[in-house]
């Protein structure tokens, strides 16, 4: 009995493993359908050139418009220059530091002022602004005040401002013969990296 069953199973398996007869036109029809499908292209250029539908929300348009306004504003207030007085706050907000400090090099300024409560550096590299945050000296002890701040390459004039009112030339730097405002200035030459 067992031998008959095995024989029957082998016949069934042989039958199932055999080729399935199909119409000779099936291959042609399948290949025609494949060739008719759009070609799948790869690569960055293909992605750029392939047309696609993009859905944009009103919020996206708002962000795009805001970006354009900011970049146009940068063009207007370049180098702190603005035509419209109403844009001043924007200019100040965008350029807290002059753009030419981009290539600046760190320079250490040191002043010995034992009795001082506040020491800052003002010069043509920071718009002669003694309140500029980057140029506020810190007390290092023993009456020594120092700050390391960015200065662009070139010849510059500067001064220390003690207690917001007294202008003091740097005793370690060359003085500039500049008596336009009756107060001494010091000079510094910052060499370019090039």
């Amino acid at each position, binding site marked *: 009995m067992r031998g008959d069953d095995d024989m029957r199973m082998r016949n069934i398996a042989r039958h199932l493993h055999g080729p399935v007869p199909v119409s000779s036109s099936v291959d042609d029809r399948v290949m025609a359908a494949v060739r008719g499908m759009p070609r799948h292209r790869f690569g960055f250029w293909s992605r750029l050139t392939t047309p696609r539908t993009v859905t944009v929300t009103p919020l996206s348009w708002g962000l795009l418009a805001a970006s354009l306004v900011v970049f146009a504003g940068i063009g207007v207030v370049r180098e702190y220059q*603005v*035509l*419209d007085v109403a*844009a*001043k706050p924007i200019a100040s907000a965008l350029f807290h530091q002059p753009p030419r400090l981009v290539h600046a090099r760190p320079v250490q300024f040191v002043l010995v002022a034992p009795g001082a409560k506040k020491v800052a550096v003002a010069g043509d590299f920071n718009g*002669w602004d003694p309140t500029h945050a980057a140029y506020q000296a810190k007390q290092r002890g023993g009456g020594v005040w120092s700050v390391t701040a960015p200065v662009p390459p070139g010849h510059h004039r500067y001064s220390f401002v003690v207690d917001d009112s007294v202008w003091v030339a740097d005793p370690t730097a060359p003085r500039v013969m500049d008596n336009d*405002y009756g107060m001494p200035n010091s000079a510094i030459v910052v060499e370019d990296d090039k």
Partner: protein
Amino acid sequence: MNARGRALLALMLFAPAAGAQDVRLASRLDKPTFAAVNAIIDSARHAKLPTAPLVDKALEGAAKGSDGEKIVTAVHQLSIRMSSARRVLGARATADEIKTAAGALDAGISQRDLARIRAAAGNGPVTMPLAVVMDLIGRSVPVATATALVVQLERAGVKDSDLAIYQRNVRSDIDRGADPSIAARTRARGLVLRAAAPPARPTE
């Protein structure tokens, strides 16, 4: 975009090149001073002079609490000196060279001496040589001596970095009590000799 929008965009894009004003000046100067300084700056811009030094000069005056008249005078004088400097240095002079040369003229260097320094420097920048001259003058070296020494150093082909060392050495000598002219001459002689000497060969 409608016509109004296009006009606004053009104004925003081209305003900086068309006689724009500096926001810092507007906030730190009174109205009459601001107007006068702006007129000088506009003239300088039309003359193709650098305007940043003029803005800085006005800002310096405002920071130091000077009155408007003094500020306008200082800015005007600087524009005249920069114009003279540019005439001597030539059209290819950089903004920094013009600014430094204007300072040198203010320090007492003549236009003739400025031209000598320009010629001695060849095609190189004159910012550092002029800074050294001004430093020497500021340290009581006579103008003629300071100019002659720097011309000599430039002709010997001394580099800017060596000029900076020279400046520091002279300053150090003077601080220790040396006579300024003698210190400047002595240090210059050493630098010229070193520049003229053949480069030392490494010993094996």
